[in-house]
């Protein structure tokens, strides 16, 4: 029998928080599992949707930026260059969209059951991650098609994936908590995602940004993530800008830690406000 004592008093929710998260890990997986299961129920082509969307965007970008605008791709096939950036971007965009609405969508749970609220947006990011792995199959296909072989740097890719995860989760924490109180963020997020696609180097290489501005360009943390992905997969054609990457890393860490603190602070009142 579990004889631990729970103490409930104003402001004391922090006491066993991290242990509780561990204890509720199964619920966390169940919520992610539910979202994945439900996602493509009653759709004709099902899971193919998570492949189709980045693929279609990639084709459009290749035609518009590669063929019409004739932007450089540093010797790498344009579709591969776009798709390598598309993967982390889609992961970020999907996770952000899903997690920012996650608390409101699960309002009935928040007001009826206790669990560490953190697992709700975290579950949404996991769903985004699953989509990421599914759509990366296409990247393999593209590489075979263009006979492109990455070098050993690809083993550093997980590091950049972690960075993408932290950026998505951190921003997701901020937006989900803000969304509970200020429903305005429901309109901010789609705009942010749409806007972000163009200010991040998804359809083009960040090398076309003038050298004087390149460091500042990394103020958008997704620039660091995308450049990291390109560097790890495509190799020397896309050299990394280390000061810029450090700036992006620092900002991701800031967003993540800030998001965590803000979420924890707001969490107590979720059930009363949502």
């Amino acid at each position, binding site marked *: 029998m579990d004889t631990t004592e729970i103490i409930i008093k104003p402001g004391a929710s922090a006491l066993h928080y991290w242990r509780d998260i561990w204890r509720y890990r199964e619920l966390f997986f169940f919520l992610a599992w539910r979202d994945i299961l439900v996602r493509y129920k009653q759709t004709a082509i099902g899971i193919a949707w998570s492949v189709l969307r980045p693929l279609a965007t990639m084709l459009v970008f290749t035609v518009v930026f590669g063929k019409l605008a004739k932007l450089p791709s540093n010797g790498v096939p344009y579709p591969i260059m776009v798709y390598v950036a598309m993967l982390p971007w889609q992961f970020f965009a999907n996770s952000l969209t899903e997690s920012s609405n996650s608390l409101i969508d699960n309002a009935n749970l928040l007001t009826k059951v*206790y669990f560490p609220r953190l697992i709700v947006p975290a579950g949404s990011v996991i769903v985004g991650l699953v989509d990421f792995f599914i759509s990366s199959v296409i990247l393999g296909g593209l590489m075979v098609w263009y006979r492109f072989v990455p070098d050993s740097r690809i083993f550093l890719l997980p590091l950049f994936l972690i960075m993408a995860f932290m950026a998505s989760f951190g921003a997701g924490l901020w937006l989900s908590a803000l969304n509970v109180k200020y429903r305005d963020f429901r309109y901010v997020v789609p705009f942010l995602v749409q806007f972000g696609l163009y200010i991040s180097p998804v359809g083009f290489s960040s090398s076309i940004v003038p050298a004087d501005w390149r460091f500042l360009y990394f103020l958008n943390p997704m620039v660091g993530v995308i450049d990291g992905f390109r560097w790890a997969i495509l190799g020397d054609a896309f050299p990394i800008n280390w000061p810029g990457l450090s700036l992006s890393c620092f900002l991701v860490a800031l967003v993540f830690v800030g998001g965590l603190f803000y979420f924890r602070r707001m969490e*107590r009142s979720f059930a009363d406000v949502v």
Partner: protein
Amino acid sequence: MSTVISVENLGKKYLLKHQSSRQPYVALRDVLSDGIKNFGQRLLGRGNSSLSDPAQEEFWALKDVSFEVKQGDRIGIIGRNGAGKSTLLKILSRITEPTTGCVRIKGRVASLLEVGTGFHPELTGRENIFLNGAILGMSRAEIRKKFDEIVDFAEIEKFLDTPVKRYSSGMYVRLAFAVAAHLEPEILVVDEVLAVGDAQFQKKCLGKMEDVSTKEGRTVLFVSHNMAALRTLCTQAVEIEKGNIKFVGDVDAAVQRYLQNEHTSFVRRDHQKGNRFLQVSVIDAVGVPGETFTESNKMYLAVRVFIECPKDIHCGVTLYNSVNVPLISSCVLDTFGDMQAGVSNYTLQIPVELLHSGHYRVEGAIWDQYRVYDNSENLCNFSLVRNDSILEAKGTESRGFLRFPYDWRLETVRGDIAP
């Protein structure tokens, strides 16, 4: 027996916003504009704290609540709607934080504040059992162990792999109950969840809960308006009124006290202005108010109201039975074109012939299309004792909430013997 829950000076404050035109949630626009306004006022040297904001009002849903629960106790929580019962349960199950005070709980708490929390319509019965179980705090191993038992209990074997959106509402509720009934935490917190579902299944669930708690010494906190259910399931009771504890002790004493303390008639004592109820009581044919009637009495509801300006004003009453089911209702405008200005008495006959023996409550409200002027969930109460039913005299419970107002007729068929 050791103490498993101790509650000390618990309080919960809500801020009520009186802004009917605005959305229930805060929009960033309002925060920004309010912020700028406040800033501007501070610049001009006019102090304006948010406390004096007339649009906000403090409301204590619970105040200075203290009690203790020993291991194995089965405690019923009694109180009218809005007394703070649900708030108390929400604090105990850690959904919301108290404003003051402290609670100590030893053991794993599972709360059942709603049947079928987290059920997803697109998922199948099987998937929902696992999901709902996890939400209620069961581990996967635990659910797997009890899976067959749950399916048996819910009687839905055939539909296990059908999405629950295709279930009938009865099947849905049965499945939800079945998962909940197999929870085995050390402390179980249950809100009025038995109010849905058919009577037979309710009994099955109550039986299961009683089983679990008596055999295995689990602690149960149970909120219900169903006094009969409380009496069978609980040993102790806590009565809450307007956020304060009124009584702690034996369940039978508490139920009796609670029923006695209900207003048998209503007399306005506060200083409410405007359209309002002044006095409401149940009277007999000669106008004598009472609380207990038999089927041979004629009963009337006597309502004295004050109406300022009768344009489009409605005044209505609803009769509830002891398990909180609204039975019949009526509105003054059902009879009259308009209400009368000033103080007037309206009387309405209560259809005794429709009612079984039991305890009844009258709810009433005065409203127009814009606002509610006065309302009370508990204007008055009365008991009806029927002496004409042989079935009831034998102690058999009647089926249904109402009875046929007419007598059976008998016609003897002569000379024939049934084939």
